[in-house]
């Protein structure tokens, strides 16, 4: 379903819905994911983890484990050797490598239950498990803190005695759990509030939630006697794994080859390393390949999640609904080490709206939880939950239609965001209008139902990518991409190449290269692959076309300006020549005679990524007995630029919406008094299943293709997780007649709000 404003285009492949090139492997069980790989002589690795939320490691005695027959290697934090150099660009921002290393294997302290302390490699899983039990770790248990607001209180246990809040002048006198203080804003907020017609206020909280990819982290590492090693793993970026692993073990990059396996979901959570350096350290010690696979419990305890948040928000508006000022403080859990995406929360909070006066403060707060990892639009959903709830309050107070209110305040091209970018090529207003015109928004609600609306924003990024296009001798083509394919990107890469080359999609295949077989690329994340790697693919294909035209001109002895390339065929436009067109097939088969193989590789740093905007509508009902909320109808609309493969774009919207609904209604990390996680399983950490959800309708708004991309693509993967939290909560609030401010909206809290608790 596209909206009607689509400009006329006559693409043959782009915009179609072909079967993805890797599809058959994935429906027949042949696709090799991280844990599917096997090498001769391979050992099983296991990781010993902290049973405590916060403790000093007094000693680690592995002597008994070492003697156990079948144990081939044991490593601890001392086996890591973090190389010098700057931080590495990762998930949400630059990753401080010493923190990543201390997370991978603890130094002298453990900061959360499940923190890795030691690892073994053994000849069987049973021996490995027995060896873990024989490793004796002596801890001095320290007081812990879990909650973000408590972690900021005076007297809270301080995790890192060298953590002095960054961004505060003068430098604080004492260390604390506040790693950083971000401030951004503009205008005169005080004056705007003084003259406001309406003021809205609220305090909102969200729980820490896990990315929830179904494939646990897994890798195989093999150290060679000459120091050259190979890692097979599922990750969002083979180059990122290489960079981080090499840094943590102090190896030259050229000695480490990372081969990307298929990846069973990442959502940002696989933009860092947990296992790879450990597996390689084990392999280095014993000279045999080592496989490490996390259990689901380990995934919950020691990977991901994203920050829980606590936020205060205040809006000023005129009586007719124009928002004049906003004030917000965002406090995000970082987990055990600095690095929550709170800065991104600040930057995105009001990115949908043109607000003249803004004051935002973001606090990055550590506590005894696993180190957070990026999760789809990192930092944005929580901030949007507070902002979109407050805007919903404003709409109610002024008795305005929530979409009209958002249209009134929406950013337009040319507006300046609080983080310095000028809004360009945006179709936010078109997206709001598309929702307003959609049958869902016009449909009458049944008694006992309510509707919520919310919007969301994500930057989308470009960045470094590489791709190659090889013309096969029979006139087909192979695309070599540098990015792991998580959600069907092989299809969009092949489609853009086919469109550019003028080939049918079946004649173009796509492969994902290892770190030695293609130029560097940033990770699959930030909604950048179709945009940036796609740009590299198209430029490589354009180079190939130019080369084909040159070869045709040479064959015909005509001016290259007289060669036209269309539908995979070169035609001579020189009327003085009486020659037959040359197909790709003919040119390819004769390539030896015109200069050799036909191929091109392009590496670039893509600029001009365009932001995306989403608007979601959610109808739901509540069981008055149990307090259980059921979503009965859901529509997700998004400014997508141009959809290369619309079915996979719809899939991104649907999947993001489902994750957001889970975030709103069920998902949370539940800690007990000892600071231990009480729900480290899929049974207790409840993610949406098929019977929890209705069909999810989508509206792909293609009103403003991105002119900076050859086919108009904008990133689409992250935006759709931003609106659902408030879309759901606004509907629940309408039904219970009270503003809901704390996620998840569990049956207990809903019953309490209905006065039945």
């Amino acid at each position, binding site marked *: 379903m596209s909206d009607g404003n689509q400009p006329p285009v006559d693409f043959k492949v782009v915009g179609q819905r072909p079967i993805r090139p890797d599809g058959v492997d994935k429906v027949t069980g042949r696709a090799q994911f991280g844990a599917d790989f096997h090498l001769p002589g391979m050992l099983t690795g296991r990781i010993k983890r902290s049973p405590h939320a916060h403790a000093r490691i007094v000693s680690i005695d592995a002597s008994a484990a070492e003697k156990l027959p079948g144990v081939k290697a044991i490593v601890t934090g001392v086996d890591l050797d973090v190389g010098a150099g*700057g*931080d590495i660009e990762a998930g949400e921002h630059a990753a401080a490598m010493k923190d990543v290393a201390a997370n991978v294997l603890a130094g002298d302290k453990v900061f959360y239950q499940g923190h890795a302390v030691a690892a073994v490699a053994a000849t069987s899983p049973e021996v490995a498990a027995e060896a873990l039990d024989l490793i004796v770790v002596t801890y001095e248990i320290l007081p812990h803190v879990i909650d973000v607001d408590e972690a900021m209180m005076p007297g809270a246990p301080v995790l890192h005695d060298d953590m002095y809040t*960054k961004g505060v002048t003068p430098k604080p006198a004492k260390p604390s759990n506040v790693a950083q203080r971000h401030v951004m804003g503009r205008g005169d907020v005080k004056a705007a509030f003084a003259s406001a017609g309406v003021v809205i206020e609220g305090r909102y909280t969200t729980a820490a939630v896990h990315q929830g990819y179904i494939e646990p982290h897994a890798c195989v590492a093999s150290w060679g006697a000459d120091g050259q090693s190979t890692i097979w793993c599922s990750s969002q970026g083979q180059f990122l794994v290489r960079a981080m692993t090499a840094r943590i073990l102090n190896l030259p990059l050229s000695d480490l080859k990372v081969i990307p396996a298929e990846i069973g979901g990442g959502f*940002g959570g696989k*933009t860092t390393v947990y296992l790879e350096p450990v597996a390689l350290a084990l392999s280095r010690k014993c000279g045999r390949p080592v496989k490490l696979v996390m259990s689901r419990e380990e995934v919950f305890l020691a990977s991901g999640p994203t920050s829980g948040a606590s936020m205060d928000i205040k809006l000023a508006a005129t009586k007719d609904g124009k928002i004049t000022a906003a004030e917000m403080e965002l406090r995000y859990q970082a987990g055990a080490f600095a690095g929550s995406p709170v*800065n991104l929360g600040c930057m995105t909070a009001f990115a949908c709206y043109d607000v003249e006066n803004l004051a935002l403060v973001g606090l990055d707060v550590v506590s005894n939880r696993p180190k957070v990892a990026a999760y789809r639009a990192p930092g944005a959903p929580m901030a949007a939950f507070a902002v979109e709830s407050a805007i919903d309050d404003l709409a109610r107070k002024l008795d305005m239609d929530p979409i009209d209110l958002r249209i009134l305040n929406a950013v337009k091209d040319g507006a300046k965001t609080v983080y310095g970018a000028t809004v360009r090529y945006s179709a936010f207003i078109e997206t709001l209008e598309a929702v307003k015109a959609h049958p869902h928004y016009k449909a009458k609600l049944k008694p006992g139902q309510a509707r919520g609306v919310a919007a969301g924003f994500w930057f989308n*990024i470009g960045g470094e990518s590489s791709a190659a296009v090889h013309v096969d001798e029979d006139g087909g083509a192979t695309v070599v991409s540098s990015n792991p394919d998580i959600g069907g990107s092989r299809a969009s890469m092949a489609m853009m190449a086919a469109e550019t080359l003028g080939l049918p999609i079946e004649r173009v295949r796509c492969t994902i290269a290892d770190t030695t077989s293609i130029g560097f690329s940033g990770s699959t994340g930030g909604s950048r692959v179709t945009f940036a790697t796609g740009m590299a693919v198209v430029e490589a294909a354009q180079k190939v076309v130019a080369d084909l035209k040159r070869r045709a001109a040479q064959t015909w002895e005509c001016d290259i300006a007289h060669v036209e390339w269309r539908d995979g065929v070169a035609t001579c436009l020189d009327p003085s020549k009486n020659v037959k067109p040359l197909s790709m097939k003919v040119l390819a088969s004769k390539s030896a005679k015109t200069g050799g193989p036909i191929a091109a590789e392009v590496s670039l740093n893509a600029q001009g990524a365009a932001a995306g905007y989403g608007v979601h509508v959610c109808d739901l009902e509540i069981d008055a007995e149990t307090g259980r909320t059921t979503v009965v109808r859901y529509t997700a609309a998004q400014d997508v630029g141009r959809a290369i493969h619309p079915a996979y774009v719809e899939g991104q919207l649907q999947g993001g919406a489902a994750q957001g609904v889970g975030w709103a209604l069920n998902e949370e990390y539940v800690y007990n008094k000892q600071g231990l996680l009480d729900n480290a399983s899929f049974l207790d950490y409840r993610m949406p299943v098929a019977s929890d959800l209705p069909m999810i309708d989508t509206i792909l708004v293609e009103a403003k293709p991105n002119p900076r991309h050859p086919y108009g693509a904008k990133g689409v993967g992250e935006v759709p997780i931003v609106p659902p939290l408030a879309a759901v909560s606004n509907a629940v609030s309408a039904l219970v007649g009270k503003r809901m401010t704390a996620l998840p909206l569990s049956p207990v809290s809903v019953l309490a709000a209905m006065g039945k608790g």
Partner: protein
Amino acid sequence: MARVVSISSKVRDLTGGLDAFDVEAATVRGLIRALEAKFPGLGDLVENEMSLAIDGEIHQDAMLEPLSPGSEVVLIPRISGG
């Protein structure tokens, strides 16, 4: 003269709390040199860890970009994503 604005806490630590200041520079390279001279450590930080929004357009890595007189340069932490 370019107007430099920062939304980064790390920058503030190096500028003694300043979030906006003017710098004489015609290119990003020049800007980074000037920042380093004005606030030691800031040039390196910007070069290695920051993105720039130059007159509204975000550049992840902008060493070669020209600056016009009166350009506004916003120092922002690198954005990446999930």
